[in-house]
């Protein structure tokens, strides 16, 4: 069950999208998120969905894999849908006890659900097509102009890299500790919420101890290999802005222009 978490996973494929400069993809994602919030009509969503579908098709990541990532967030989508559906005034469509569903409510609920789904799928495309290392390199490069005003861009990027690298390690560690405590008769599956929260202590304490131990070892290993921060550090794989990135950039300008026009005129 712990292995089902797919958020932030990378999907290995050879595709034009995978080959793009990570900086292009990060900016693309930001532009896309802004666009999803700008759109105010269903026609606009149709356009955004079409563009997203084109990117997905180009990336050759199977749709089933992308949709699997939606599963854990399904409950949140459902929750916002039902919250919205009962919250608006307008022409009453249906009345169940104290709850009324209006045309306005239904419209907003569907609208919000589509917006959420588009947001999640769109932003997961970034991590699905970009290796974590590339992603942090991209972020570092994008933040580097801020170095002048004292933003430690290299350190921030390194922290992100390490955090990402630790996710599988900590999942494995959690699995091991859970088993060990289960062997001592611990029960994580039954009881009230409070009981269950309390039952987490035998996992959390060893997990923290382990995390600190692993972090300490890692810091030592990095220092042993002369790591001393970003100053004067060179890279094996330089990120490069290529022809594909230029094309994508132009398409992006077209994309956001259409969305802005939709916002103003529709």
């Amino acid at each position, binding site marked *: 069950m712990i292995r089902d978490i797919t958020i932030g996973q990378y999907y290995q494929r050879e595709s034009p999208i995978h080959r793009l400069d990570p900086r292009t993809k990060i900016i693309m994602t930001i532009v896309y998120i802004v666009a999803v919030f700008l759109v105010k009509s269903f026609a606009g969503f149709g356009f955004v969905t079409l563009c997203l579908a084109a990117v997905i098709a180009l990336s050759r990541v199977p749709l089933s894999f992308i949709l699997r990532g939606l599963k854990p967030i399904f409950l949140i989508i459902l929750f916002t849908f039902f919250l919205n559906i009962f919250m608006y005034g307008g022409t009453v469509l249906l009345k169940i006890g104290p709850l009324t569903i209006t045309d306005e409510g239904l419209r907003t609920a569907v609208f919000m659900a589509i917006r959420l789904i588009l947001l999640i799928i769109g932003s997961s495309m970034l991590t699905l097509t970009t290796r974590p290392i590339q992603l942090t390199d991209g972020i570092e490069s994008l933040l580097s102009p801020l170095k002048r005003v004292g933003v430690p861009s290299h350190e921030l990027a390194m922290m992100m890299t390490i955090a990402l690298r630790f996710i599988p390690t900590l999942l494995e560690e959690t699995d091991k*500790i859970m088993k*060990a*405590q289960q*062997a*001592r*008769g611990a029960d994580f599956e039954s009881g009230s919420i409070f009981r269950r929260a309390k039952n987490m*202590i*035998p996992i*959390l304490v060893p997990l923290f101890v382990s995390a600190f131990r692993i972090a300490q070892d890692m810091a030592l290993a990095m220092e042993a290999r002369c790591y001393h921060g970003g100053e004067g550090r060179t890279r094996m794989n330089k990120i490069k802005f290529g022809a594909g990135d230029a094309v994508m950039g132009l398409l992006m300008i077209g994309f956001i222009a259409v969305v802005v026009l939709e916002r103003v005129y529709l």
Partner: protein
Amino acid sequence: MSIEVSNLTHIYSPGQPEEQIALDGISFTVEDGSFVGIIGHTGSGKSTLVQHLNGILRPTRGKIYVDGEDITQKNVSLTDIRKKVGLVFQYPEYQLFEETVAKDVAFGPKNLGLPEQQIDMRVRNAIELVGLDYEEIKDVSPFELSGGQKRRVAIAGVIAMQPGVLILDEPTAGLDPKSHDDILKMIDEMRASQQMTTILVSHNMDDVAKMADKVLVIDEGRLAMEGTPQEVFSKGEDLTALGLDLPAVTHILMKLKENGIDAGTDTFDVKEAAAAIAAALEGGAEAESSAGQEE
């Protein structure tokens, strides 16, 4: 308490692209009161195997009987199984979490729902069984102890549940030679005084050879060999082919035998082996000198 494993198969992520057969049709029995050693190289499936024996993992196929009861059935109480079979994981000190040693050791018995007074008694017994001073250590934080002491406390945490079968997965991994010997001695003494059936998973052929009555060799999820240490370690070439080693003593005795000095290969004890070699050398010398006299 006896354990019978029949045709045990475990498949990780069945039906998925990353499907992996971890255990493949393993059958064996562990007699009541015996000491069984399980050896195999890294990734052979030893740890997966022992995690089945107290219900942490459920088999994909096959049956496991503990004390005659089938523990693979759905309605079996896991608490009952864990009362019978205690499992000490690799690096068990990483499971310590309580403020004091006594509280940590009490975690298992508490989960079994025993009365307070009985828990206290078991905790005291368990801590003393692993060779620590109860009064001295009970209120110390487990995080302040040395590596060897931490491991003893962690083992005590399982002993306190008073299982009929004790399984130890690499109990000496990462310890210095002195702590290594101490832990093994402790296991041997505990077994003698409590009449516990014991299963030891190990990389160390010497330990298994010296302590076990029966050795199981696991390779790629299959039971590759089974028998007394003498039987298993007499097949040196087969073991090497599986990426395993011989006990140091056996290794020397085998080499001597290859070079014409037959001192037998049955013993795993350094002193006994030395005596046997001395006897063989003297015998050989006598035979040679008598042959010379006849000429």
